[in-house]
Structure formats: C-alpha cells, structure tokens
C-alpha cells in the first residue's frame, strides 16, 4: 500500500519526545515544512514537492533578552489558524511562536519557574488570542482542569461545522478533556483515564482518537464519552497519532518500531465507528517518536525515530 521514498537528512537526531514531528503543507509554494526537535533545538527542513530543493534552518529555544540560557524543548507544532500559520515551540522556560517558516519569532511567553522544581507542568492550558497579522498576541484564558501535565491536544480537523466539540486535551494520567471554543472555552466532557498516560490525541468528526502508553488506541465519542472502540494496536508505548481528515486514515507509531495505518468509518445512523487495519511499516531497529501524514488525504506520511538523523517518508503505491 505504501512504499518507502527518499529520506530527508536532518542536522541533528530526533529526541525521544511524544509527537516529535511537525508537518505543514504550503500548497501555493509547493513546499512542505518539517520540524524535528533535538534537545534545545528545532530542526526545520523546507522540502520542495519535486524533491530537488531542501533548505534547513535551526531554531533554538532562548529567551530573547538573555543570550545564554537555553532550555529543553518539549514539543514543536504547527498551528494552522484561519488567517495564518504559526510554529509554536514549547520549552521548559516558556512558549515561543514563530512565523510558519521559522523566520521571525512573533511572541514569547515565559513560564513561571516554580520554587520547588518539579519538572512537570501543572496541567494548565493557556489560550492565546492571535491576530491575523503581526505580533500582538495576548493570553486570553487559562483553563485549569487537568491535574497532571498535558501531553497533547488537538482540535477538530474535519472542517465540519456541525461538530460541537472543538478541542480535546490529554494528560499524563490518561484523562481527556473535551472543550468547546467561544468567547470563553467551555468544558463539555471529561473522559477518565486509568492511570495510563495518553501520549497523543486527535479529534475527528466528533470522535476522540487517543493513543496510550499501553499501546492501545481508544476511540471515544467526544461529547458523551462513549467508548466506540479499543484497539490493542502496539506492543509498546504509542508516541504519535495522526489523522488524514479527508480520507479518514489513522496513523499510529510506537516504540515497538512499527507504524500502522488504519481506516476509520463513521456511521452516524447507527452511531458507530469502525476501525480497519490497512497497513504496517516496520522501521527496523528504531524507536519511533513522530509520525504524521504529509497531506490531508493520507497519500504520504513521514516518520522520525529516536537517534535517527533523517525523516523517513512513505508514499502510497
């Protein structure tokens, strides 16, 4: 179903962090941006679609006025907003937002250093107001519902206006919170975990797809919390999930060196969700830490692995 294509070499290897791969497709310029985190540096590669041009850039997490302090980056992700795309980099010291090509930092938000260093965040979710242009970004709300550190969050990616829930957030205890955006964010539902960390979460057509440390993937209905399906997908900790919104393909990657492709079918009449397993890729001798589809149809996907200095790509045959 998929075959391996030429890999993209990156300057540093990938760190062993959840969801350690960001992909942004720029159709007008026929480019795709990839981001991979290594310690305190984000490696950005801009790859042209014809496969001929690659340009590299590195972003360091530094406080703008303090030249010397650096901190480890936890995650770097692209946020596709209606009017612009931003690259958001979260590190131990704060949050940085860049233009999508990484050229300019538009915002820096410092996090308070706690008196007793715990090394884990408190579980608060920060909501920022982003204007369509410029750097006038402001913190608009702080949502405090989770008690454990946040591992991942996702917004509704199907583009459908009918879905009530817009956002789902996951934490280290496996608890999921489902929110509705608006003037203020409203908590719609809280789905309990079973003390097993949820490392990656996605929201598609009102269904929450969550990957856990046990290697399981669970599909819940966002608003009601009904469990639609539980898949014993992997033998080790799941590190990354992604959904191709136009085709309903689900990509899951774990420490067991496997990347699996599934297909999700929603049947609104019977209110059921079906999961079908389509394809496996074994990335030999690698603990995979990031896997993402490169386009909305799931025609191609990219994978990063711990200690690997390349982004491996697969394309549908």
């Amino acid at each position: 179903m998929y075959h391996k294509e030429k890999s993209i070499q990156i300057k540093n290897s990938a760190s062993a962090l959840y969801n350690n791969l960001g992909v942004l497709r720029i159709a007008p310029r026929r480019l795709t941006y990839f981001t991979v985190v290594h310690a305190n540096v984000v490696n950005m590669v801009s790859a042209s679609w014809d496969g001929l041009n690659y340009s590299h850039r590195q972003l360091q997490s530094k406080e703008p006025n303090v030249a010397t302090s650096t901190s480890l980056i936890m995650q770097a992700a692209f946020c596709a907003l209606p009017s612009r795309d931003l690259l958001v980099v979260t590190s131990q010291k704060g949050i940085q937002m860049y233009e999508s090509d990484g050229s300019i930092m538009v915002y820096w938000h410092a996090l308070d250093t706690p008196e007793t260093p715990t090394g884990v965040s408190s579980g608060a979710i920060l909501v920022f107001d982003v204007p369509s242009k410029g750097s006038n970004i402001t913190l608009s709300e702080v949502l405090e519902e989770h008690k454990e550190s946040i591992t991942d969050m996702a917004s509704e990616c199907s583009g459908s206006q009918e879905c009530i829930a817009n956002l789902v957030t996951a934490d280290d205890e496996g608890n999921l919170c489902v929110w509705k955006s608006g003037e203020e964010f409203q908590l719609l539902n809280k789905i309990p975990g079973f003390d097993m960390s949820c490392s990656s979460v996605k929201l598609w057509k009102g269904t929450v797809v969550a990957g856990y440390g046990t290697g399981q993937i669970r599909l819940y209905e966002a608003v009601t919390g009904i469990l639609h399906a539980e898949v014993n997908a992997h033998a080790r900790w799941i590190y990354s999930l992604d959904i191709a919104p136009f085709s309903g393909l689900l990509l899951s990657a774990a420490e067991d060196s496997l990347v699996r492709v599934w297909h999700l079918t929603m049947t609104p009449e019977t209110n059921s969700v079906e999961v079908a397993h389509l394809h496996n890729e074994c990335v030999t001798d690698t603990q995979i830490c990031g896997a993402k589809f490169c386009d909305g149809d799931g025609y191609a996907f990219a994978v990063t692995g711990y200690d690997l200095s390349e982004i491996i790509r697969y394309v549908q045959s």
Partner: protein
Amino acid sequence: MSVRTLPLVFINLGGEMLYILDQRLRAHNTSEDNSEKVMNDIVGTMFSKAFMDELLKPQQLYSHRTMKTVLTRLAHASIMRLNPASMERLYELMVMAFKYQVFLCPRPKDLLLISYNHIDAIREFVRDTPVVLNQVDETHRKIIEVFIIYSPLSAGEFQLLRQTLASDCGLRSVFCSGRRWTVTGRELRRTEFPYWRNYTQPIREGSFELYGNRVIRLGMNMYTVDHPEETHTSKASSVKPVDDSPNLLAKEELNLLARLMGTMKSENTSEAETGFRINLFTTDEEEKEAAAGGAEEPLFGVINIQAMQDQQATTELARIAGQFAEEEEKPENHSSSKGDDLLAMMDHL
C-alpha cells in the same frame, strides 16, 4: 525534564563501572585482597550516606562533564589507578551499557528493577564487609522509600525519566560482542512474534522489595561471560560536535562538585606504595595508542577549572584534587575574603 533521575543514573552507571572493573581486575589476575579492597572502597564512597543524601535531592541531571568528573573521582577513591585513555574507555562503556538498558525496558517502571539488579550485584561484591554492605542496604531502602512509598511515580513519570535519560546519552560507540549493535551504533532489536503458537500467561512481575527475584535481566552483569574483547570506539566526532562554548554553569557545577567531593572520604595517602594500575584495553600498546589518538580529538570538552578568577580558589581546588591523586599536599595557609559557597566548603575540609 524530570528532576528525579540523578540517583538512578548514578546507581546504574556506578554499577556498570563496578562490573567492568571487576572483570578487568580478574583479567589482570589481581590478588583477592586488592580486588576486594578496591571494590569496598569504591562502593563505600558511592553509597556513603552524605553522598546519597545529596543525590536524592530533586535536581537537574548533571552534564556529561560533571558526571564524568565525579565518576572519575569515584573510580580513584581506591588504590587503583586508571590513566585518562582507560578512564575515557570506561566511561563510554558505562554510558553505552546504561543507554542499552534504558531502551530495552519493557515498561518504564522496569527502570527501578534495573537499578535493583545493579544494587543486588553490588551487594554480592561487598558481601564480606559488613560496614559497606550495610550502607548498600540503607541506600536501597532509601530508594524504595523515595520512589515507591513516599512519592510513587506513575507510568508517565517513569517514561519522562526515560526520555530525560535518552536526551542526555548522546554518545555513540560500537559494542560488537553479542552482536547487539550495528557498526553505525544503532541497536539491533530483533523480535519475532510467532502467532501460530499457544500462549500462556506473561512473565511474572519482578519484585520491588529489598530482596527478591527481579525477573528482568537488564542490569545484570554482562561481563561475567568471557568474550574476546572487540570493543571499538568510534572516532565519529562529527556525530557529536565538540561543544566549544564556555560552560556558563561551570561555577554551579563546581559548587556541586565541591559539595560532593567534600562528602567523599579522602584517601589515606600513605597507601601510595600499594597503588596499582588498571588497563581497560587488551594490551598496553593499545592503551598508549588510544591515549595518543585521543589527545588530538577529545570527544569531550576539557573541563576548564579556571572558571574562578580567584587564584587562591584554584589552588585550593588543586589541593583537593591532589588529595585524590595522592600527590603531596601543598601547604595552604590563607584566609578567604569571599563568602563563596565553594571557598566556604573548602575551608572546612
């Protein structure tokens, strides 16, 4: 990242160091007495109450430089001597073995079981010396208290520990025996799942108590079986670029180092005559070769002890270092005007 990793890292790296040293001592046909003395001295220093209490405080993981320095001091806390090339080799082997163990943990909580395996083996090494054995037991109890009873870590937190360790061990070496690694330094993880077989219940859970069967084999002594030594150190320094930037945390690290060294018992210098050298390479020629080759391209930055401008401070530090290297102690007789942590500590020594 996690601030609870340090004690586990030390116990595991220290444990690996003892396995390697034990194997080398046997390969060199060192006398029983000397071997036992070396083991007791190192274990005694590593598991001393003050040292362990310092380690168990929540703090960030040490940089490679600091870790290497403290472990070098630890290795020399006995009558045994290692030259720089051998010490370098020892450190690489230790870090590599530990990285291997961290990755192959089936569950994040197995990190604790690996540490317990190391502690069990260390107990075996010092079983004839009740004082040191007691220290090991005490430390083991403290670890159980910290990690299981008082603030039990969830699976997510253990995973964070593993990720912290993963981000730290950026070292590459080739470890050919047992065919566990490829030549480029990638681990081989061949697993097959014969789906046609009948399956019974999974392996039983390892014991988290003071004594017990840990079940997991990671963390046990890999060196007890004699393999012809074919370890090679990769000269691929292009993989790990040498960090030339001045380490601005040097002062903090030195303070930490001074606190740790202050808690380590200084050796009786009259034993200089009984000191003996250990070689980590198969022949002395190899060692000399490695020393010569290593000098041109150090894989680690040299520790710049001159982070302090105070001449008196550097002399003082050199004096402390001298105690461990068993050189003649320089007579010192000065009062310090700075209220520095480092100086205050040294004045008390």
